[in-house]
Structures are given as structure tokens and as C-alpha cells.
């Protein structure tokens, strides 16, 4: 097995390139249209357990039935948890350090994962009140909300 000691361990560099066109579905489409056209955030309520899902869901996983009413939520909400990411990866929409949070919008039962912006990173605390900042030009994606920023105290 001497040859193993002298083998040149080769490495083949490559990338997988598979483009995707995900169907948003009718429920998700309504949510994104509202973001894009009206800067409103919608949730959907399960009439069985009254959970208001944000992002809206076509079905309630717990009751396993179709959700019912559309409910406008927020715009403000409470920060449930957060982190400040210090390292860069190619996928980040803004430069590191960047902050993520899970925000429970007023009227929603679930939390929405999003970016926190225009904020002193050292001052972020769970329980903070936040409000969405919308992009000027919106395309009907989750990034139509640029980030959530702390509500200015009155």
C-alpha cells in the first residue's frame, strides 16, 4: 500500500446550479400582495383554536383544518428573541454585523422572523416594541419589509 503515502489527494471544485420557481400559493400570494401594494401585514386565523398565523397559513397544523378569517396584524409588535450575527455569509441581505429577531406582531399568535435595523445593536432587548420599515420599491417578497426598528418612545 506504499502508493497511498504518495498519492496526490485531488479536489474537484464545482457548484450545483438549479434555478427554482417556487409556487407561493394563493394564501401566501395574498400576504405578499398586501405587503407590496398596501404595506399591510396579514395573518390568518384558525377558527378551531383561534391561532392567528403570521406568516399566514392555508391550514392549521394543530387542528388540521383549513384556516378561516384573514386578520390584519401589527404594524407594531413585540420582540420575542433576537441575535446579532457577527460573521459574514454570502446570503445575508445586509452587511454583518446584522440583527435577526422573532417579532410577535400585535394580534398575531405566532412570531415572524425578520431583520432588525436602524437600531443600536447593544440596546436590543427581548420585549422591545418594534415597527416595520417598508422598502420604497416593493416586489412582493418578505424583503418588502426592510427591517423592524424600535418604536420611538412618545
Amino acid at each position, binding site marked *: 500500500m506504499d502508493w497511498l503515502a504518495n498519492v496526490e489527494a485531488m479536489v474537484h471544485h464545482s457548484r450545483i446550479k438549479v434555478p427554482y420557481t*417556487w*409556487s407561493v400559493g394563493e394564501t401566501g400570494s395574498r400576504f405578499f400582495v398586501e405587503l407590496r401594494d398596501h404595506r399591510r401585514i396579514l395573518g390568518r386565523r384558525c377558527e378551531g383554536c383561534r391561532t392567528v398565523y403570521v406568516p399566514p397559513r392555508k391550514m392549521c397544523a394543530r387542528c388540521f383544518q383549513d384556516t378561516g378569517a384573514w386578520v390584519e396584524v401589527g404594524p407594531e409588535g413585540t420582540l420575542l428573541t433576537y441575535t446579532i450575527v457577527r460573521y459574514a455569509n454570502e446570503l445575508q441581505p445586509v452587511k454583518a454585523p446584522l440583527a435577526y429577531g422573532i417579532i410577535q406582531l400585535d394580534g398575531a399568535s405566532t412570531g415572524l422572523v425578520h431583520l432588525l435595523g436602524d437600531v443600536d445593536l447593544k440596546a436590543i432587548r427581548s420585549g422591545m416594541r418594534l415597527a416595520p420599515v417598508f422598502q420604497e420599491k416593493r416586489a412582493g417578497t418578505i424583503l418588502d419589509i426592510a427591517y423592524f426598528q424600535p418604536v420611538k418612545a412618545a
Partner: protein
Amino acid sequence: MPNRVAIVGTGQTHHCTRRLDVNGVELIYEAVQRALADAELKIQDIDGVIIGNMDHFEGINYVDCWSIDGSGGFGKPTMKLTTGGTTGSTLAIGGYHMVASGMFDKLLVIGWEKNSESDTTGAITTAFDPIWDRLVFAGAISGLAVEASVYMATYGVTEKDAARVTVRDRRHACLNPYAHLRKEVTIEEVMSSARLSDPLKLLDLCPRTDGACAVIFASENVAEKICPKPAWILGTANRHLYTYLGDADFVNLPSLQRASAELYKKTGIREPLKQIDVMELYIPYSFAGLSWIEALGLCKPGEAPRLLWDGVTDLGGELPINASGGVISCNPIGATGLIRCAEAALQIMGKADKRQVPDVKIALSSGFGGCFWSDVLLYGARKPL
């Protein structure tokens, strides 16, 4: 003691080119709701979920986790099985063992695919070894074209013989409201369709489909209470023989030969053509409808064209194959093998509507994919001893 296992309910979406109205999770939910309705069960009655698809077709990692809202797996034991094109049949086999083990009484088995969301060839190409195969042998079609060429050269089978398979499957599909392609085609139309990879033409091949299928497997403790005529699983077998395309034996699909030989041996099938009443086969392209039924032992190698032309495998013939229209009429890949299982079960249960074969006692379903891999299952109307 292991439990005997039966299928007590099935559900499918109406398979089509593109479902823009639902995302993947919602597509899955549709099939699951239909299966529950078919079995007259609620999600609370289900003890566990297994689900599968081919990852790179939708680009979602950990699909069992991602789909939990729609799969019914929330708060339950949930896991993903996947083996490429054989995913659906791998899932069916999984459903059997999981319930036979006694660990589950009622297991929900889900296969799905939203092929519209990606470039199928681009995604399938990633299945093959990046060092040896991927750079030179792209997509699913080329391998099958090679197999077809070998078959033609070995036995003198013609493109017209193969076209008869497409004609059969596409005609059957007209009776199946769930099938994707529901328009008959003629031999001439197949022969004059666009050449893609010699000798394969467009109409020799299966479509790309969005669809989901859910099947409920139940143990003997509950099966007969749920369903008056459940479809009992009599046996399962598979062979995933090859790792590199160059290793594959392109004559007579050895994986199917060996898997079916094992299945027949343990279930007492000595003359499949006589003893099996209906087959739902994963035939992704026309020539396979000839060479692979030889692999299944329905006739000697090279003789399959005769069975086709004599109408033996048509509805009304001695052994109808793909009463559902098969894969040539419908191919949501992760679901396809499971749809074969569901269709075989429907035949046993007497629920196959216009495509029902009379008096089905024994049915067989198969799966195909990967590197010329095969899975097979046998179903029976009578509870096994």
C-alpha cells in the same frame, strides 16, 4: 409477532403540469386530507408520518421538518425516506415495515413532487457522481436511451413496439381523473414526435408533474374496522444494485429481475402472468414497458411485444398493466412510486371506478429510479395467513 399490514385509505391530488394555487406544503395537505377522508379517519387517529420527495426538485432541505404543517406530522413521529425515483415505492415499503413491526397502528405515508418548481434535468444530473459521471452523462434520458438501444439490438424489438406501450398507458389514463395527461395518442403520433435521445422520442417519455399522494397503512388490529376491503401487503423486495452508471447492466434490468424473483419466492407466485390480476408499474418510458415486463417474468426476453400487441396488458386483457395510465401519463416523481401503490390498492379495494379491473385478488406495484434500481410490492384481497 409481526403484524399483518393493510392499506385502508388513499388520497391523491389531481396531478397536473403546474399547481400555482398551492405551495408544496399545501399540495401535501390536499393529498393527506383526501386519504383521511377515504379512510374516514382524523389526523388524531394517525400514529406517525413518513414522507418523501427528491430534494433538489424543490430545493428544500429537511422536507420532513418543513412540511409539518401540511403532512399532519406535528407532534408525531415523522421522518423522511428518499431514494430518488424509487422514493414512492421506498415509502410504501417503509409503511409496511413500520406498521408490521408493531411500532405503529396507523401510519400515514406521503409522496410528493412539484416538478414545476425546478429544471428537472438540472436537478437529476446532481444525482450522479460528480467525479466520474456527472460531467459526461447528464439527466435521466440518456441512460434510458442506452438501455433502449441495447434492447433493440439484442432482440430486434422496434420503436413501433415500444410506441404500443405509450398508446396503452395514455388510453388508460383517460379513465383516471387524477392522471396528468388524459388524451390518447396514436402509434403514428409517437413515432413522429420529436427525437430527444435516440431512439427515444418525446412521446416515449413521461411528463413532469406536480402532485402528491398519501396512503394510510394500518395494522391488522384496526385495518378491518377502518376499511371493509383493505389491501393487504403480501410482501416487499428491492434491489438498488448500482452506484456508477457504467456499472449498470443495460440488459433486462437485473434489479427488477432479482427483486421480483425474491418477491415471488416469498409469496408463492410461480406464474406471474396467471396469478397476478393487475400490475401498476413504474414505466417511465415506452421501451421499459417491454423489457421490464420480461424482467418481471411475464414472458421470455424479447417476447414482450407480443403481449402488448395481443392486448394482454390492456384493460380487458389477461393482466392489465397501468390501468391508471402509469408514469407515461403522470410523473410527480417523489409521489410516482407511491401512486403505483395507491392504484394497486384501489384495485384490490374495488375503488378504482372507471379503471377498475374486475375481481382483483392479487396486485403488484413497482418503483424505478436512481441507477437502474427497482422496488416491488405485492398486495392481496385476502388477509395473509
